[in-house]
């Protein structure tokens, strides 16, 4: 499956890039995200509890980052394991460009799903992934454009003093939401099919 889109975010590029590197914000933007942990400066794991209709699943994902060039671009590859359900693999490239006071975020994702996940996934994979990506950006946009000092911002600040995600944030990396969102989208798509 391939997804490609451009999203306009109401914040300057530097802030967008930082936010993309702020696990606390990302954690809030990813629907159902339960935890984010850094296992090395460029490797992360996350647990996402996904639910669609009557179906629910917990999904463990890992993400590695490369080609980081703040505040312009990075690439990411991730893999999510849904246990006996199978797996999802994601490769994504993100590029930011200025658009006045706002930022244009260009992304392209190639995701592959395997095991029963993929076999039963059928044709609604793309759609569900798109839908979830859309939800993510809506939430992300809302969080990033909150005035400073608001709750989310405070939460993000608090978390920078804690462990895992904080290290990630300080290292200037962290858009692991990509792998997770896409992998989770795929899982949900699979779940959505009988």
């Amino acid at each position: 499956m391939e997804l490609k889109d451009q999203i306009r975010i109401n914040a300057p590029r530097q802030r967008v890039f930082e936010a993309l590197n702020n696990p606390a914000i990302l954690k809030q933007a990813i629907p159902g995200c339960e935890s984010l942990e850094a296992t090395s400066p460029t490797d992360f794991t996350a647990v996402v509890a996904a639910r669609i209709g009557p179906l629910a699943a917990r999904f463990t994902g890992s993400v590695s980052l490369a080609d980081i060039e703040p505040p312009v671009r990075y690439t990411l590859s991730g893999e999510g394991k849904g246990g006996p359900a199978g797996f999802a693999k994601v490769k994504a490239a993100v590029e930011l460009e200025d658009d006045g006071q706002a930022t244009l975020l260009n992304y392209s994702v190639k995701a592959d799903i395997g095991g029963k996940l993929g076999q039963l996934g059928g044709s609604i994979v793309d759609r569900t992934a798109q839908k979830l990506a859309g939800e993510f950006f809506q939430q992300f946009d809302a969080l990033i454009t909150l005035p400073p000092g608001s709750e989310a911002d405070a939460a993000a600040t608090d978390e920078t003093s804690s462990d895992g995600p904080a290290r990630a944030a300080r290292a200037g990396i962290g858009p692991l939401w990509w792998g997770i969102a896409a992998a989770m989208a795929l899982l949900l798509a699979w779940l959505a099919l009988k």
Partner: protein
Amino acid sequence: MSANPDNQKSWMGTRLPRKEDLRLITGQGKYVADIVLPGMLHAVFVRSDYAHARLVSVDVSAALEAPGVVAVITGEEMKTQCRSLRQPVLLPNLPAKYPTYYGLAVDKVKFHGDPVAMVIARDKYQAVDAAELVVVDYEELPVVLDPEAALAPDSPRVHEEEADNLMFEMTFTGGATDEDRAKNAAEVERIFQSADVVVKERFRVHRTGTTPMETRGVLADWSASDGLTVYNTTQRPHIDRLAFADILDIPAEKVRVIAPRDMGGGFGLKAPFYRESVVVAYACRKLGRPVRWIESRYESLMNIGQERGQINTLEVAASKEGKLLALRNRGIADVGTGQIGVYWGFVMPFLGAVEMPNAYTWEAGDTDLRVIFTNKACLTPSRAFGHFPTRFAVERAVDIVARKIGMEPSDLRRRNLVPRLPYTSVTGEYYDSGDFLKVWDNLMSQVDLPGFRREQAEARAQGKYLGIGFGCGVELSGVASELMVPMENQPGYGAATVRIDPRGKVFIMGGDAPGGQGHETTISQIVAATFGISPEDTIITTGDTGTTPFGSGTIGARMGSYFASAVRKACDELREKMTHVLAHDLGIRATMEEFAFTDGEIVYQRDPSKRKGFREIAERIVMFPINLPEGEVGGLETTAFFEAAKPMICFNADACVVEVELATGQFKVLRWLTSEDVGNVINPMIVDGQMHGAIVQGLSNAIFEEFIYNDQGQQMTADFEHYKLATAADMPDIKVTYASTPCPHTPLGTRGIGEGRPSAVPGALCNALVDALVPFGIEITELPIRPSVLWQKLKAAGAV
């Protein structure tokens, strides 16, 4: 004993209802999943989610702790405790790269569905629970999926110990030396250069197969004194027995394999020796308890039954008068991992290439085949063994030639049919006997082609598109040792033990293992006819290596040719003995031919007052063996073996009528008519049924079914929602007719039938579709042919 009201001959050729049916329609059949042994454990396989990956670790600790779990077996254990499946008894005598592999994957997984571990539990639900707890750490490797790309020097290798992915290659024409073959190729090229008409197309046939309704099942039982007993859904129990012995290192006399009497279809899928059987048998020996594995449909569709899968780039040269001159083919088969005992995935395309010339008198041919490893499940034999794709190519190409020169395709076929048999094809296949023209003319006599052409024209004028398509097929009637030994390293002869008990009942034991073909009935008809008794007085046992003579299995249409002939031979040996003793008792000098076996009696034909009941003479020889003719001893049992000097064939021709809806490309097969040479028919009802089933399998393969791998090697069609079989509502009525020539090489004039039968179907179907759409000049060179595909072609041709 019930008497036969008619004369003995009536049992042959009779539409006798089957002996098998009573138990099957009342729910008393006993399939492998119905067999339960005390203390039996249930096995479930953990299979790879990846098409190609290194096995970093297989952690079974959580699974071992799960409720009900008795053991978990991994590849490492299989490798150290058993031999590989690369054993001589499972290896053909053909030069190929034979991968070494074990019951479970070792070091790496090579296709999506590769077995990685086996969990054994007391309850099958718990076994599935525990299998979810086996944690496998995979390190993904690049996948090899496209057979042509797999030949590139820098392609990743499916089997790293091999130099490349080319498993097998062979040229089938031109002789044994490179020089001869080069000469032949040049001669063929010369014909092509000067031919009036040349057709060249790349014919692609997808992966599909025959998918019996019963999946595989293995129930293994171990006893320290008797050794291993395996109830196995297999078409060849005697080969399995040797394989179990060799791989598990058990003396062969301590292995007994029983193919359950009731098997839910085989169609070739149950002919190979499978790795899962080894693991189940190993676990049973290790645990000293019965272990049963019943394959899920998911596993079945992931692992076996995938056949066809060939690309044939075929060129045909012809004269403008419609004489087929030469064929040149470059075949490619996408074999998958090549890991299936006996066949190794390439024996089918090998035979498919041999059978490519079909029933036509080509003057020359230049054909070769390359079989290439990929990260897919290994090709498994399926009815129409290897030649579904090659026949599709030839039958389509013949039609394309006919259309190019403005000839009726049926006329062109008739003109090029081998006029007299025996005949040896350009690929060296021997056609022993029959009358192709008689079969063809019988077909055409029922078609009324001019009438159809008028109907077609009228319909077309009203916007209704009808088409007629033809096809034909030379099929093997059993496979002789001459071909079986090189091809599968196994004999081809038929074997049967016939025993007459003191009550005059006849027991027949055969080493083959049927799966619905009606062996019990047809054999009972042969025996009843031979002895003049009722079919009810016969008891047929098959498939148990403990009680039956060695047989190569129920494969390649061996029933009507080899097994039936061996039974007849054995019966004749016993008739000889019975009449010898009877003549002695009657105090006359007479040969067997002077006696008639009829109505439960043996009658001296020159003096019908001299007669004795079949049961009485049986009892006399078995129970009271005194005062026998000199040199005779008591007992009535013999084992006979049958082998014809040369391979034998059967032949069929098909015509079908289709209607295509232009707006959607949706089509319906309106009529299907066949003409068959099956030799002398034992039970026409059963033969009809074989033909119906084969034709519908062919149609379902050609239209609906397709095993699909995505670009990651993920198999995307592992259930019946995604792998679509034809339903009753999708299929036409079928009319089967006969134009038989008795086979001169079998004692009853019978031929083996039904195995290759689906192969003529896709060509005939697509020829009809193309015929219906002649105004738009579309061609079909790929399968499956679906409405959406046809509509795209119509759209491209400007028809819609």
